[in-house]
């Protein structure tokens, strides 16, 4: 498995889904998934999607600057570390962010997000 290719494909899918239809992210999380969003801890697909769909903006666009990935261990997991910009509708300046994902394989040959941590990078 080419972890670089898989992680880049995941990142593209994640952010294009986020930007087009946030509710569509539900399929990427499971009951044991954990999100820490700007310090707030949320567990489980339903709660995570509720959080993401209730963020205080309608439209946004993520632009990815860097993607780093590493295998996380013998279970076939991958760690993906992303940095980029987040443009919110109506805002003059884009926000900068960093995010890490820990992807775990599913029996169907895909991946789900076990760990997800998001932080804005303030100047």
């Amino acid at each position: 498995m080419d972890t670089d290719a898989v992680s880049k494909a995941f990142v593209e899918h994640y952010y294009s889904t986020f930007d087009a239809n946030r509710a569509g992210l539900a399929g990427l999380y499971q009951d044991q998934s954990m999100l820490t969003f700007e310090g707030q801890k949320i567990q489980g697909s339903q709660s995570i999607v509720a959080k993401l769909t209730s963020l205080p903006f309608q439209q946004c666009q993520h632009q990815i600057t860097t993607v780093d990935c590493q295998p996380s261990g013998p279970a076939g997991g991958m760690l993906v570390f992303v940095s980029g910009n987040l443009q919110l509708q109506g805002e003059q300046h884009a926000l900068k962010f960093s995010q890490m994902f820990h992807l775990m394989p599913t029996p169907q040959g895909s991946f789900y997000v076990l760990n997800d941590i998001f932080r804005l990078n303030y100047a």
Partner: protein
Amino acid sequence: MEEHLEDVGKTFVSHYYNLFDNDRSSLASLYQPSSVLTFEGQKIQGVDNIATKLKQLPFDQCHHVVSTIDCQPSSFVGGIMVFVSGSLQLPGEEHTLRFSQMFQLIPSRGGSYFVQNDVFRLNYG
């Protein structure tokens, strides 16, 4: 359990940057042969290679100031994901650099932790 995780993460982060800033060669003790570091996009594996890379960074002194630490349990029993953001001050540089770094900590014998995964990125802009 939650609190314990946060405490371990904070203690580790404090120890890591303290070593980095004051005794960089001792960082080797936190890695094992399976450890992987990605430093500004460059991938390095194993204790010796990682220690060499960190030792050869083009500055003698530096000071990390941590702004945020987020922790979550990893897939390993007792493993911890740690996500850090902060500033890095280099001597002679007027402006501090900003960075983000993530660690996956795995329990080692003796009740301590080692760094299995380490990714470091400067935050430009």
